[in-house]
């Protein structure tokens, strides 16, 4: 239990996916313009992360490992994730139209979100058990949510700021991200063993 808690806190704060591992930078910069879209995107990412962690873990353990096919991990994982995202989209559309309405537009973007494939590769690297990988996926999603929402608040303010010509758009956004990232460095000492 203590171990799971360590994974949870670790993935949310200490090794925040976006701000310290640079996974999922595209949506972080792309959809953090407004807090409402940031919420939708991070909800969708968390949702897919949890399911994909479970499915890729099972794929790895029962399909790739027994046949010594670990070298096909990259191909297998990305295909599983792509299929899964499609599947989740279809199921949500049929069974939970309300949730689909909230998350629907963000789902297709998630296939190529590095956070999803990244966390699958991390659980292999760290040899997590099934429960651990699912918790890790959930925590990574929460960390992503936290970063995205914090950042969208800042960007809403940047909208009205007076910025030098060359810095408009991406440069100033990256510099703001750098400042947010500094604050997260403060959690680096927070290691629970």
């Amino acid at each position, binding site marked *: 239990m203590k171990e799971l808690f360590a994974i949870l806190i670790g993935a949310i704060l200490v090794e925040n996916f976006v701000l310290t591992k640079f996974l999922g*930078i*595209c949506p972080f910069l*792309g959809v953090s313009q407004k807090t409402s879209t940031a919420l939708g995107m991070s909800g969708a990412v968390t949702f897919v992360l949890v399911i994909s962690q479970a499915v890729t873990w099972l794929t790895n353990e029962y399909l790739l490992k027994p046949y010594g096919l670990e070298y096909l991990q990259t*191909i297998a994982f990305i295909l599983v994730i792509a299929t899964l995202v499609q599947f989740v989209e279809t199921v949500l559309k049929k069974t939970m139209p309300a949730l689909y309405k909230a998350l629907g537009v963000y789902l297709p973007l998630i296939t190529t979100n590095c956070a999803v494939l*990244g966390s699958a*590769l991390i659980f292999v690297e760290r040899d997590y058990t099934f429960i651990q990988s699912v918790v890790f996926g959930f925590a990574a999603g929460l960390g992503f949510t936290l970063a995205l929402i914090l950042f969208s608040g800042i960007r809403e303010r940047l909208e009205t700021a007076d910025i030098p010509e060359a810095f*408009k758009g991406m440069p100033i956004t990256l510099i703001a991200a750098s400042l947010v*990232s500094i604050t997260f460095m403060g959690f680096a000492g927070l290691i629970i063993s």
Partner: protein
Amino acid sequence: MEKKKKSLGSIFLDGIINQNPAFRLLLGNCPSLAITTLAKNGVGMGLAATFVLVGSNLFISLLRKIIPEKVRIPCFIVVIASFTTIVEMIMAAFLPELDKELGIYIPLIVVNCIIFARAEMFAQKNPPVESFMDGIGMGTGFMIAITIIGSVRELLGSGTWMGIPVTVNLFEPATFFILPPGGFLVMGLLIALFNKVFKVKDPRTIEDKEVGCCAVGCQGCANAANGGETV
């Protein structure tokens, strides 16, 4: 430049300056921020990405008449993932040190938007030779860009370049630059500098037409390039 068809040379140059993937199209941000703590890593990552880009561009271009429109995205993913796996194996076998340094970011080349975007925007519409050249141009542009980011961060953060001590007596290296926030900062400043030097009036206008039509999968990136205006 009155010819309708672009010459191979200009396709190559496009990738380096006009459409530099990291500085202009703002694609593939994850690796350009994550592994650029050392200039050496930038070169390694750039080479790996170039290999995948050239391979996948060439193959997708060759297969462009066979791949059905509707299932093109899964097809692209398979081609790209195969080349990434090849790179992974080559790296692990011949450059184990670099492989360790780059870690999960090598398999993550699969989801690098640059490769996806070029497949979608260039390779599936153009013949193999041009696509091959586009891959080399884009890859080189990406490699140059991340090597520059890596050099700046390494110089300021560790006081070395390619592992050679440079600033021993000049100043104390600031560890900040090799930490994640330094990555964001250096990247932001370099893009601003690039905009200034190449006189990009409004950096958004170019990407609107170039990346706006990008595949569903990398729309997140396309939006990032558009300054996050859509979605």
